[in-house]
């Protein structure tokens, strides 16, 4: 039992928070909140160093057990294509790592090679190929392997699509949409060898030993069938074969599995001095997202209260006006509101799980390198 008046060094496993071992309020504010003033945010750097408060006798280290105890996830919205959830108890560096991995390092399938047989449209070959590469495919990348330069394209690492559209002479212009891409589960149909060669099996650009229909449960295709690829006038045609392979967003953005993924810190709006009467009305009108609301006091007076702090977009309209000093905008440092919008290959919750797995794999790789 520490003597009255002395500060004892708190061990990591010490559970009860004694009065002498708590940080003073102003330091606690600096440690857990980013204060967003009218001109710029302050206290953006957290106190991460374990010995930051060593002079006061307070241990700032966070063990893994403490992290596991305090960590929480709260899912706000989960649909087939996007999700919004709260991650509480984690630091910005790890939240950012997940975001970076989601955008650049979770693999997907996308069209990489185009075998152009006929293109008489006004869209140049390379422009058409670029557009085809950006089309999101409805294929689970976990069922496929990566392909390298020397590998033969087979059913385990390539998906083959065919596009054969033509516009007859005399008819109206047509629009080629992504829904016209046809999946070829048996592999490539374009033959490599010249037609003069005899033999019952022509050599094609892929060597599928079995049909992909047997390996996969549901048919592959494009996710959105209404993406415009090209427009054909009368007499023009496009005939091509496209091979889709597995890749990551780091190499080319077409392989990014998310439309985007972002996070923001939980906003906290604090009214330091009471705002009453007309000022309160003005304040409520100023906020574009209705963070404030009016509360009626007993004797006919009105008071502004914070109704929906979560909606705050930090436009700073409330702190710029005459009653600006009475309001403080803050962000909670370890509470992140994550939004993930998937392009469709994988559902967003699977994407997040894959991203966390990839961070684990990175750590493992470095650990094995060090050993």
């Amino acid at each position, binding site marked *: 039992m520490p003597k009255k008046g002395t500060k004892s060094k708190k061990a*990591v496993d010490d559970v009860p928070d004694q009065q002498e071992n708590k940080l003073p309020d102003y330091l606690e504010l600096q440690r857990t909140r980013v204060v967003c003033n009218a001109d710029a945010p302050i206290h953006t750097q957290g106190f*991460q*160093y*374990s*010995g930051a408060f060593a002079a006061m006798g307070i*241990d700032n*280290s*966070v*063990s*893994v057990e403490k*992290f*596991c105890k305090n*960590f*929480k*996830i*709260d*899912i706000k919205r*989960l*649909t*087939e294509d996007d999700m919004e*959830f709260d*991650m509480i108890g*984690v*630091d910005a*560096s*790890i939240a*950012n*790592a997940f975001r*970076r*991995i989601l955008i650049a*390092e979770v693999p997907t399938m996308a069209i990489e090679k185009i075998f152009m047989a006929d293109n008489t449209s006004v869209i140049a070959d390379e422009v058409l190929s670029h557009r085809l590469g950006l089309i999101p495919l409805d294929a689970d990348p976990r069922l496929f392997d990566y392909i390298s330069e020397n590998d033969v394209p087979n059913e385990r690492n390539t998906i083959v699509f065919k596009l054969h559209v033509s516009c007859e002479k005399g008819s109206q212009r047509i629009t080629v949409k992504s829904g016209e891409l046809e999946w070829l589960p048996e592999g490539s149909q374009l033959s490599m060898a010249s037609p003069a060669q005899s033999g019952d099996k022509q050599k094609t650009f892929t060597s599928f030993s079995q049909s992909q229909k047997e390996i996969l449960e549901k048919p592959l295709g494009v996710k959105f069938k209404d993406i415009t690829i090209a427009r054909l006038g009368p007499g023009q045609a496009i005939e091509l074969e496209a091979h889709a392979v597995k890749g990551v967003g780091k190499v080319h953005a077409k392989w990014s599995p998310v439309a985007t993924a972002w996070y923001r810190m939980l906003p906290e709006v604090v009214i330091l001095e009471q705002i009453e009467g007309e000022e309160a009305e003005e304040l409520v009108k100023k906020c574009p997202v209705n963070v404030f609301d009016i509360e009626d006091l007993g004797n006919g007076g009105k008071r502004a209260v914070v109704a929906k702090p979560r909606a705050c977009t930090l436009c700073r309209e409330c702190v710029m006006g005459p009653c600006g000093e009475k309001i403080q905008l803050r962000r909670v440092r370890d509470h992140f509101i994550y939004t993930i919008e998937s392009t469709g290959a994988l559902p967003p*919750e699977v994407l*997040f*799980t894959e991203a*966390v*797995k990839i*961070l*684990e794999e*990175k*750590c*493992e790789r*470095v*650990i094995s*390198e*060090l*050993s």
Partner: protein
Amino acid sequence: MEHGSVTDSTASTFSIMEEDHTLANSARFVLNQDPRVAFCGYSIPHPADKKINIRVQTTGDPAKDVLKDALQDLMVMCQHVRGIFDIAVANHRAKKPAEQIDVDQK
């Protein structure tokens, strides 16, 4: 690669290839939380090269072990995140079965 002194194993710089801010910042954060660490930081010598340098100075333990422990801790944290996330998704789905039916109807 570890660049350190032969006599003093408590301070060294680790050069890791094929990595960027994603791993370096997370590793630096976890290292900072460890009470054995006196100083830690990371830098990227040139943005075109995929190389990071993580500097670790400890209060006595060999820097390599401390870094390894920090990465182990990071792995445990990731596994915990995944576990909690899966539970949260399952709870969310259980709470709203009506929505799930809509998802299945394509």
